[in-house]
């Protein structure tokens, strides 16, 4: 059963920009770390994506976040006199704009890489952000997966 779930989550992880995906069930923990986000040292060793399965997490898993994929000035809304695109508790679908980043005088939307719920904003409106900087802490939308063949719940 683990392997099935593994494949499923691996696809999900690959499809996103999320640094880490942690799936916990009945004390079993499955976590993915995409090495593009891991530190330099391990990086130059690792293969692009490493998966680990353990019965308990070695340390508390880092919270899931939406990270910046560009460098610029962070805005909660896509134009000055509009309200923030998302607030704490907003549930967004994959590909939905959650903020905007201005670089070289151009505003670009920040899109949610997956459907999830905004837990909190990590950068204040109008502040500079660098590549890979966490913008929002999020938690995965509880998905109702089509039961997998042969799976007993």
């Amino acid at each position, binding site marked *: 059963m683990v392997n099935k779930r593994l494949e499923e989550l691996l696809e999900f992880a690959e499809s996103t920009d999320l640094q880490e995906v942690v799936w916990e069930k009945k004390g079993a923990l499955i976590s993915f770390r995409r090495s*593009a986000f891991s*530190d*330099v*040292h391990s990086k130059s060793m690792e293969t692009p994506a490493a998966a680990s399965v353990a019965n308990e997490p070695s340390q508390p898993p880092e919270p899931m976040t939406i990270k910046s994929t560009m*460098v610029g000035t962070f805005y909660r809304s896509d134009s000055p006199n509009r309200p923030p695109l998302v607030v704490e508790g907003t549930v967004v679908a994959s590909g939905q704009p959650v903020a905007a980043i201005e*670089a070289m005088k151009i505003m670009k939307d920040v899109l949610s890489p997956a459907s999830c719920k905004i837990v909190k904003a990590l950068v204040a409106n109008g502040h500079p952000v*660098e*590549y890979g*900087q966490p913008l929002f802490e999020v938690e995965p939308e509880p998905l109702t997966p089509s039961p997998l063949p042969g799976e007993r719940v």
Partner: protein
Amino acid sequence: MFKKVLIANRGEIAVRIIRACREMGLKTVAVHSEADNDSMHVKMADESVCIGPGPASESYLNIPNIISAAEISGADAIHPGYGFLSENPYFADVCESCHIHFIGPSKEAIERMGDKAAARETMRKADVPIVPGSDGPVSIDDAGLPKLARKIGYPVIVKAVAGGGGRGLRVVANESELLPAIEVAQTEAKKAFGNGDVYIEKYIEKPRHIEFQIVADAKGRVIYLPERECSIQRRHQKLIEESPSPFVDSSLRRKMGKAARRAAEAVDYVTVGTVEFLVDPEGDFYFLEMNTRIQVEHTVTEMVTGLDLVREQIRLAAGERIAYDRDDYPARGHAIECRINAEDPEHDFRPSPGIITQLILPGPPGVRVDTHLYTGYTIPTYYDSLLAKLIVIGDNREEAIKRMQRALNEFKIDGVKTTIPLFQKVMEHEVFRKGEAYTDFIGKYMTASTNGTQ
């Protein structure tokens, strides 16, 4: 003068630029990929901005992120270092349109010198000798061909326009061989590149690579500094540079230096740059190209002149004047540089990444090491393999070689294979010691089959 300089580079040259800025009282911004989070230039700069993942195409070549990093950090100038975006006219252009000073020449100068044909044309007009040739494809049906070849002077070499890897190359010793050689070359080129066009130019035997550092200000004053010889190369990659050249005497120096100055003046060059020549045993020299940036080997010129060329470059980019007023800038001693790479010379120079478990640098007197290494540093796999530049200065070439041997022997870089053993062999080699090495030296004497180690 600028207030805050963003360094759009990494490794030893980023470190070198940060040092110059610090001494000038300028704030520094390092940009880096995620693979360089722990690298020296990030630790040293006043601020740092991550601009992308490891691959250079997504980070150190990512113009929007670099410009944006300058904007959010408030940098008013960008130093491109060497490689990466340093000779990219578009980048220079973007900087200008974003009102950020590009520390280098104008985009026009970069453009003109970046295009081989345009550069040759500019040099011809500026009366800078270029390698005589057919300028474009030749045809065996062209009756004027033998006359042209005679004018160029034998031996001539036939080269494929599509070029590369020696295929479609033919050296022609005399007229009787000319047409047959062209035919063979055309057939080879057609097979190799799907393009049979070939051109001819003078074949230079026993060529030396000799270059001149020029320094130019916005008022049009151009100074040339003592030459550097860089004949020790591997696949057109310089491995050893020295100044002065064991071959150049003061009259040739003056002749070549003045040609280099004409080359710079022809493109209204500002800041520092290098004009490269091929030189034959008779002392005839031919323009190769102009590098419109600071070079890896600027260090040997600094050692003999005492100048800080990176500081000069920044000063001149900020519109300041050249403070000194002479050619044949006074030099003292003889300097040699070895580029220490993380490569295994015993196995065709294959890259050797890894963690530096112990680093002990060779010490004074007369020894300089430009490096971004430290004990415990992990070498990322994405970038070039330059670990350190080891430069020595001695009273004369013989002293400098002895000092280099002492320093190579002292240099300890544990954890990776390096090219240090290769340089130890070169320093012992009589052809190098006599100053008789040409650009074919490494291939001829230092490959696994010729250096007697296998």
